């Protein structure tokens, strides 16, 4: 496994969302259009094998269930489709899901057991959908109260019942999405005991307002991390009552994942994944995981300035329009790629620059190890 990140350039426009299949041989990706493209890995590159075209408006989110191999897509057309692979024809067949929302769907995720999925929407509700055997269709139940604005992101708790939601009303909430008949009563957790559908198990703010762009439960489910447009990351642990808000000196993050119980990676408008670590009891920013792509000309000594004046007739500091990170534009999605939920080894990021990059978490910790005195 090479240490440097694996950059995949598709050159088909900005990537709005992506999802890998269970064994990472296939990729579902949307280039800000009404269709989702399926790519298959061939050697070091990806070749397109099929197109999922049913939506009338841009697809906002896609998720691929690793074990049942079903894809769910949701779009601004207020619909979601569940796609199953037809064995004989190798075609993906769509099934419409009635979400009963009157605004765009923004985000979708399969539950850990893959028997439900949750769709966030601009209708200020979350549609939790499950398959009803009797009628042979997907039914959605709404989580509405007390959401006051568009739900921007979701994350499922490992127990398949609790659901975290980040919202444009500047709150991160944890709901119960318990469906009678589908779910068994969950074990008591720090989030609550009796948990009927739509119970609010927690409502949290970050420091200075701002939409909550990304939410993520820790691998054990004991803690919740969320990131807002005020450039903070907040980690909440209801078991200990601990709430920590880290004010980052960087541009806002749009997406977060946990590498393990002590490390969080967040990525967003600074175009690079940033690592936050738990040292003792305190969470703090550790480092950017993008060892900047070094360019020959980037020096600020007097000698470099004169050299630049000679070679490029530039008297000011470098007026390059390229950003010194692998991604050239905002990263909007970060997802675990390999390893287990409690020990993520690689993660993938997709960005508005149309690149999908797979990062190696292990090499990062080795590199950081070298930074110690």
């Amino acid at each position, binding site marked *: 496994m090479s240490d440097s990140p694996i950059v995949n350039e598709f050159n088909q426009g900005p990537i709005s969302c992506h999802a890998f299949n269970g064994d990472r041989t296939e990729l579902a990706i949307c280039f800000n259009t009404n269709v989702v493209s399926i790519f298959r890995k061939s050697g070091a590159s990806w070749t397109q094998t099929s197109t999922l075209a049913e939506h009338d408006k841009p697809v906002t989110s896609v998720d691929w269930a690793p074990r049942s191999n079903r894809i769910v897509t949701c779009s601004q057309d207020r619909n979601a489709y569940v796609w199953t692979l037809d064995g004989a024809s190798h075609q993906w067949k769509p099934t419409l899901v009635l979400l009963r929302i009157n605004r765009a769907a923004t985000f979708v995720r399969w539950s850990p057991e893959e028997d439900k999925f949750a769709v966030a929407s601009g209708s200020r509700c979350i549609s939790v959908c499950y398959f009803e055997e009797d009628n042979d269709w997907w039914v959605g139940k709404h989580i509405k109260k007390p959401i006051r604005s568009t739900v921007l992101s979701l994350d499922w708790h490992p127990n398949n019942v609790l659901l975290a939601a980040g919202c444009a009303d500047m709150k991160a909430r944890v709901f119960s999405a318990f469906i009678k008949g589908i779910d068994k009563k969950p074990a008591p957790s720090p989030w609550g005991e009796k948990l009927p559908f739509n119970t609010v198990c927690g409502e949290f703010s970050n420091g200075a307002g*701002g939409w909550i762009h990304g939410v993520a439960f820790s691998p054990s489910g004991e803690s919740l991390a969320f990131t807002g447009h005020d450039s903070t990351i907040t980690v909440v642990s209801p078991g200990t009552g601990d709430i920590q808000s880290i004010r980052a000196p960087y541009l806002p993050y749009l997406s977060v994942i946990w590498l393990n119980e002590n490390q969080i990676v967040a990525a967003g408008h600074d175009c690079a994944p940033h690592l936050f670590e738990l040292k003792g009891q305190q969470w703090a920013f550790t480092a950017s995981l993008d060892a900047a792509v070094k360019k020959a000309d980037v020096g600020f000594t007097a000698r470099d300035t004169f050299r630049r004046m000679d070679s490029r007739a530039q008297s000011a500091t470098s007026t390059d329009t390229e950003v010194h990170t692998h991604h050239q534009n905002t990263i909007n999605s970060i997802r675990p790629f390999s390893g287990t939920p409690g020990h993520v080894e690689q993660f993938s990021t997709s960005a508005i620059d149309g690149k999908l990059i797979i990062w190696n978490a292990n090499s990062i910790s080795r590199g950081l190890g070298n930074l110690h005195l």
Partner: protein
Amino acid sequence: MAFRKIDIDALEEDAFGEDEIDFQEIGELRPLADVEAEVNSRAQEVRSLLQRGNTSGALSASLQNPPYGAPFHAAKARNTQTVMEVLNSIKVADVPQLVKSLSPEEQDVLMKYLYAGMAAPEQNNSGHLLAWHEKLTEVAGQGCIVRVITDRRTV
């Protein structure tokens, strides 16, 4: 499908309006008299700290408990004046060290006041405020500026 001619969001009954957002972010507003009294007493405290030469204490004191809330225009203007007095009486050479000694919350409040001050260039020395802005951004980063923009609690 033709574009709608009705502004559907204006007809929304349960809209998440400004008042509700401010109540959520700022909370119950204190009585006007209390807020103004606090701002005035802070102005005096800061002035006396400045006279004694305690610039870091004056800076820190001026940045505590800003009068957040929509109805407090006069109090906000008065408080901004207090902060400007402190900033103007500190030499540029001392700025980096003072900025580093502030807590993250105080740094965010300071950035809010820098922008509030720069919004009135006739009254305040924008050049001096820009020097403060540069030094504060070196320490607190772009995140600090973003927080000024997203925070509903304005000065």
